[in-house]
């Protein structure tokens, strides 16, 4: 009988972990939303358009800002949740590795000292 070898957990990041890290970085990069992006005011027309936009922003501030704030809170909470899930996952993996090690040690002991017949 061939005993299947136990999959071992690689100390190097796996493709999945690298992908996860990439999306985590993207999420962190874009988590903070800003309603007040810089206005372009090049040229005479640009200055007029810029001034109008500024006025519109001022008028809509009471409406837009709370929404942006809420979105930022939500994004931060989501990032926190993801980070804590990741921490839990790492912890489960550590426990799994330790348990695998214990199983291997116990199996090795069984091979050396087979149980005596009853």
């Amino acid at each position, binding site marked *: 009988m061939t005993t299947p070898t136990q999959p071992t957990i690689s100390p190097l990041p796996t493709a999945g972990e690298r992908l996860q890290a990439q999306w985590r970085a993207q999420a962190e990069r874009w988590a903070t939303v800003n309603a007040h992006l810089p206005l372009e005011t090049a040229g005479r027309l640009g200055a007029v358009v810029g001034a109008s936009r500024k006025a519109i922003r001022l008028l809509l501030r009471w409406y837009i800002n709370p929404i942006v704030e809420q979105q930022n809170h939500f994004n*931060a909470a989501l990032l*926190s949740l993801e980070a804590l899930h990741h*921490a839990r996952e*790492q*912890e489960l993996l550590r426990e799994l590795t330790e348990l695998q090690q214990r199983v291997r040690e116990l199996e090795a002991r069984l091979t050396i000292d087979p149980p005596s017949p009853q």
Partner: protein
Amino acid sequence: MNQLAIFTPLPPSSSGIGQYSSELLPTLATAYALTIVLADDAPEPAPLAIPVTIVRVSQFAQQRAPLLRLYQLGNSPEHAYILREAEEHPGICVLHDITLQHLQRWRALHEGPTAAAAYRAEMQARYGTLGKQAADDLLQNRPTTLSYQQIPLCERVVEQSLVTIVHSDYARAELLRHCPTAKVIIAPHGVPLLPLGDRTAARAQLGIAPDTLVIAALGNLIPEKRLEVALTAFARALYHLPDALFLIAGAASPHYTPCTFARMHGLEPVTRWLGRVSAAEFEQLLTATDLCVNLRWPTGGETSGSLLRMLAAGRATLVSDIGAFAEVPDDACVKIPLGPPAEAAIVRAFIQAGTLAGWADPIGARARAFVSTAHSFTRTLAGYQQAIRQAAAIVAKS
């Protein structure tokens, strides 16, 4: 030679070496008449309870007093005047870090084109093409690929010194690797052994519940202390602990924001950021703590004053298994290996401290016993006296 001029910052300076000096001076004053030389722009020092003369460096230059000079050198910009004096007037140099690269770079960037050119020339002279490249990288605002341990840039000041004092065997070996002809003496970093405080009372004052596992990272916040690693491990350990709190106190170095890291990882509710605290508040935090972390890496050969305070307070402390930190006995701290196994080792230590009653206390007791002998001011004084005797003999011969 019973008179000594000591070039050092003093509290309220933010330099940890200022605190070190203020604690060491009473011991030195039992053997020597001391003149303390401060920077011209240093704040007025806190009053000292010993008879010392305090002068500014420009005043001292006018005095032309033939005193033996002792320079306390570290990497904070507050030591720039000390490095300048040590390079011009040989004396005893106390190197708190083997690498002076941080301070040398600060000088190159802040003391004008002449300082920048001198830095570039010295880097090239000491380390050849690699050194020149690293200097160019700095002066042209590019990150360098070399670690500061490869390019410590302490050679000139050490070679000019009569004698150099370091705090550990590791620092001595490292220094001799870079300056094989240097006269190096070890004077252990002394630390006061304060009476143990009342943990329950300290927690009550800080508003921390008696059963909470309190982990603390205290002292100046610098990237080398790797708070991110400790906080990541803390997040993992939280899944095994009923209640835990991570206390962080100390002045943060510029551009280093571990607080943002904690926020982005959802740890804000279980961390407390206290900023720079007074010596008394530092002791109170230590009293309230179950476990400390001081995971410095890479190391410039320094002995951490904040680590010694943690050990002196009888606190089990997690340290990186490297450099001078590896000289703490194995059973008087928790040594964390470098590399990928570090995080899991930290998690295990956090869980053990939080779930096994009395796990940390014996480690802390052994730590306090170790500090009481290996880091007593008596041993520090003996090291300084040996260095002063050697320096005086060299002066007498010349």
